[in-house]
C-alpha cells in the first residue's frame, strides 16, 4: 500500500476513535455542570453526588479524549506536510486559537474541578465545571471552523501556490460552520445524555440507587430530547446547504447517478453499482428529496454523471465521484440512528412526565441501555459521510487528498505508526470500558463505606467527609 492510502487509514482510524470520546466529554461536561448547578441552587446533596459520580466517568473519558487529541494536532504535519504547507496560513489560525482559548481553559479548570472540591468555594467550583463545559464547546467551534474551510473554503486567496487568509471574519462566519457547529455540538450533548440515560436505565432495571438514577435520567432525558430534535432540524439545513456548496457529496449520499427529475424522490435503500454507475434496486419515496434539498415539494437535484462532466470542465481531467456506497450508507445510518433517538427521547420524556420511571417498561429500558451506542454510531457515520463524500478533495476544489501527503515519509514509517497507534488505541478502548464498568457497578455510594476522615485539620472536609485513604 502507498503512503496516501496508509495515511488515510491512519487519519480515519485515529479520528474516528478520538471522536468517540470527544462528544461524550462535551455532553457529560454540560450535564455535570447542570447537576452541580442544581446542587448549588437547591442545596440537595444528591445533586452533588450526581456530579461526582458522572464526573468519574467524565474524567476517565476526558483523559482518553485528550491524549488521542494530541495526536490529531501532530498528524497534520507528520503525515500531511504538503497539505499543512498549503493551508497552514488559513487552517493553522483556528487551531492555534483553539489551543489558546479552549485547551488552556479546559485543562486548567478541569484540574481545579477535580482537585478543588475542598479547596474552592461552592460557586467557584461550579464556575470551574461551567468553564470546562464552555471550553469543550469553544474547542469544537474552532476545530470545526478549520474543518469547514476544507468543506467550503472561504476568506482566502491563493498566492505562490499557497492559500493565504484574507478575511478571518469570513472564516468564522462560514455558512458551513454556522450549521456544522450547532449540529455537532448538539449531537455531542445528545451523546452525553444518552450515555447517562442508558446507564441510569441499567441501574433502574436492577433497582439499584433508584432515586439517584431516576434523577439522573430526568436531567439527561430532557437534554437528550432537546438536542436530538435540534440535531435533526439543523441537519435539514445542512442538506440544503450541501446541495448548493458540495452538490457532488449530496448526489453521492443519495446514490443519484442521473439527475433526479422534478420533483425529486428520496431513495430509502438501493443496491449501488459504482462500476456501472447505476443502482440495481431502489426503494423510493416521492417528493422527499426535493423537500430535503429545498424545503419544498419541487426542484431537481443534480446527479453524479452531470456533476462529473461539470467538474471536468472546471478542474480538468479526473475522477470527482467519491466512494458512493460509503457515502450513501453512512448517511442512512446517521439519519436512522438520529430518528430512533428522537423516538426514544420522546417516549422517555413521556414516561418521566407520567412518573413511571420507577416501574418502567422493561423492554424500553433495555433498549435505552443499547441506545448508548446509537449517538456514537450516528456521530461516526455523519463524519464518514462528510469526509468520504468530499473525496477526492482534501480542501474542496483546491487540493486533492493525494497531493497533501508528506513526500519525505516512507510507507514503512506510516505503517509502523499505524500499527503502534492502533495497538495502543485498542488497549485504551479496552481499559476505558473496563474502568467504566467498574465505576458503574460500584454505583454512586462506593465511597460511603470506605469513608475515613482526614487527619489533617487543614484538609478537613466541611461537607461531612469524602476522604479516602488508600
Amino acid at each position, binding site marked *: 500500500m502507498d503512503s496516501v492510502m496508509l495515511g488515510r487509514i491512519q487519519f480515519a482510524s485515529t479520528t474516528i476513535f478520538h471522536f468517540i470520546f470527544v462528544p461524550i466529554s462535551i455532553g457529560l461536561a454540560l450535564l455535570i455542570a447542570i447537576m452541580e448547578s442544581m446542587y448549588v441552587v437547591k442545596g440537595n446533596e444528591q445533586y452533588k453526588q450526581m456530579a461526582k459520580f458522572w464526573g468519574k466517568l467524565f474524567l476517565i473519558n476526558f483523559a482518553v479524549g485528550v491524549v488521542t487529541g494530541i495526536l490529531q494536532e501532530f498528524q497534520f504535519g507528520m503525515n500531511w*506536510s504538503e497539505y499543512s504547507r498549503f493551508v497552514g496560513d488559513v487552517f493553522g489560525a483556528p487551531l492555534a486559537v483553539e489551543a489558546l482559548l479552549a485547551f488552556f481553559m479546559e485543562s486548567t479548570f478541569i484540574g481545579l474541578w477535580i482537585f478543588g472540591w475542598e479547596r474552592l468555594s461552592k460557586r467557584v467550583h461550579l464556575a470551574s465545571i461551567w468553564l470546562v463545559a464552555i471550553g469543550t464547546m469553544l474547542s469544537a467551534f474552532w476545530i470545526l471552523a478549520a474543518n469547514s474551510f476544507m468543506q467550503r473554503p472561504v476568506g482566502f486567496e491563493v498566492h505562490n501556490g499557497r492559500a493565504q487568509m484574507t478575511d478571518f471574519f469570513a472564516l468564522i462566519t462560514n455558512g458551513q460552520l454556522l450549521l456544522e457547529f450547532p449540529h455537532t455540538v448538539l449531537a455531542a450533548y445528545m451523546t452525553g445524555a444518552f450515555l447517562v440515560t442508558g446507564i441510569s436505565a441499567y441501574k433502574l432495571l436492577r433497582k439499584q440507587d433508584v432515586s439517584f438514577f431516576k434523577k439522573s435520567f430526568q436531567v439527561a432525558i430532557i437534554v437528550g430530547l432537546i438536542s436530538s430534535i435540534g440535531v435533526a432540524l439543523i441537519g435539514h439545513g445542512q442538506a440544503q446547504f450541501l446541495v448548493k456548496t458540495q452538490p457532488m457529496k449530496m448526489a453521492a449520499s443519495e446514490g443519484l447517478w442521473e439527475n433526479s427529475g422534478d420533483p425529486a424522490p428520496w431513495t430509502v435503500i438501493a443496491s449501488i453499482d459504482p462500476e456501472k454507475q447505476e443502482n440495481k434496486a431502489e426503494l423510493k419515496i416521492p417528493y422527499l428529496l426535493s423537500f430535503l434539498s429545498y424545503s419544498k415539494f419541487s426542484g431537481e437535484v443534480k446527479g453524479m454523471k452531470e456533476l462529473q462532466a461539470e467538474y471536468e470542465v472546471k478542474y480538468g481531467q479526473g475522477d470527482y465521484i467519491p466512494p458512493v456506497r460509503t457515502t450513501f450508507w453512512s448517511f442512512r445510518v446517521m439519519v436512522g440512528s438520529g430518528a430512533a433517538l428522537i423516538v426514544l427521547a420522546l417516549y422517555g420524556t413521556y414516561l418521566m412526565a407520567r412518573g413511571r420511571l420507577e416501574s418502567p417498561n422493561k423492554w424500553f429500558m433495555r433498549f435505552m441501555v443499547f441506545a448508548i451506542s446509537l449517538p456514537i454510531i450516528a456521530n461516526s457515520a455523519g463524519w464518514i459521510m462528510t469526509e468520504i463524500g468530499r473525496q477526492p478533495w482534501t480542501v474542496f476544489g483546491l487540493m486533492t487528498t493525494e497531493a497533501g501527503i508528506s513526500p519525505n515519509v516512507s510507507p514503512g514509517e506510516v505503517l509502523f505508526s499505524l500499527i503502534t497507534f492502533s495497538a495502543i488505541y485498542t488497549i485504551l478502548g479496552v481499559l476505558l470500558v473496563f474502568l467504566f464498568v467498574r465505576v458503574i457497578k460500584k454505583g454512586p455510594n462506593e465511597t460511603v463505606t470506605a469513608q475515613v476522615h482526614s487527619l489533617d485539620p487543614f484538609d478537613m472536609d466541611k461537607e461531612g467527609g469524602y476522604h479516602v485513604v488508600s
Partner: protein
Amino acid sequence: MLSLNELWFILVAVLFIGFFFLEGFDYGVGMATAFIGRTDTERRVLINSIGPFWDANEVWLLTAGGAMFAAFPNWYATMFSGFYLPLVFVLLALIGRGVAFEFRGKVDSSGWRKTWDVVIFAGSLLPPLLLGVAFASILKGLPIDKNMHMHAGFFDVVNVYTLIGGITVTLLCLVHGLLFATLRTTGDLQARARNLAHKLLFPLAAAFIVFGTMTFVMTDVFKVHGVLLTIVTIAGACAFILSGAFMKLKKDGWAFGMTGAMIALSIASVFIGLFPRVMISSLGHAFDLTIHNASSGAYSLKVMTIAALTLLPFVLAYQLWSYFVFHRRVHEKEHLEY
C-alpha cells in the same frame, strides 16, 4: 520596530520556554517517582503534586505546535514530517502518561499500579529526551532540500551531539521536577527529593559543559550570535551556581526558580542561535528555513497577533491562580485524587 515575523518567532520561543518550564517539572516529577517514591503512597503523593497542573502544562506544547502551524506552516510541516519516528514515540509517551495519571488510582491492585508506574516513568522520560535530541539536531543542521523536505537518516537525528543534548534536557527536567517536589511534599520524601537534586548537579554541569563546547565547535550559532549567546551562557552558569547554593540552604523555592531560569535560558539560547532561521539545512544555507520563507502571510500573522496578545494574559492569569489554589503541600493522609 519588530516585524510580525520576528514577533511570532519570539512567541513560538516563549511558548516552548513555557512548555519546558512547566511541563519540564512534571516530567521531572514523573521520572522522580521511580527514584524517590519508595512506597505506593509516596508515588501517589508525587503524582498528586502535579495532578492539577500536568494537563494544562502539556497544552503549552500543543499551543506551540498550533502557533508554528499558523505562523510558520513550512516550519511546522518540515519539522513534523521530518521527525516522523521520534514524534511517534513522543506521542506514544504522552498518550500513555496522560491516561496513566488518570487510571492508576482507579484500581486497588499492586500489579495495576506498578504497570502504570512504568508507563509514567517512561512517558515522562521519553519526551524531554527525544525533544532534546530533536532540538540539538536542528541546531546542528538537517538534510533539508530545496523543496523544504527533510530526508533525515537515523544518524542525522541520533548521534553523540544530539544524545548529549537530549540527556542535558532530561537531567535538567529531572532536577527541576525534584525541586518542584520539594515544594509540594513534606518530610522524608521532601528531603530525598532535595538530596537527589543536589547530587544530580554534577552530572548536569558536565552535560551542560560538554553540550555547550560541542555546540561551540560543531554548529555556527556562536559565530552568528556570539555576544548574545555568551551573555545567556554566563547568566545560565550563574543560575546554576545559585541553584546549588539555594539547595544547600534549603531555600527550595529559590532553587526551583533558578532551575526554571536555567530551562528558560537554555531554550532561549536554542532560539537565539537559530534566529532568523527556524531550521538549518546541512545541504547548504540556501535551503535554510527562515522566519521569512517559512511564514504565513502578513494578514494571518496580524490576526494571530491580536488573538494571542488578547488571550495570553488571561491564560497566564488563571494558570497562575490555579497554582495559588493548590499551593499547599500534598499529605499522605489526605484524600488523593490520583
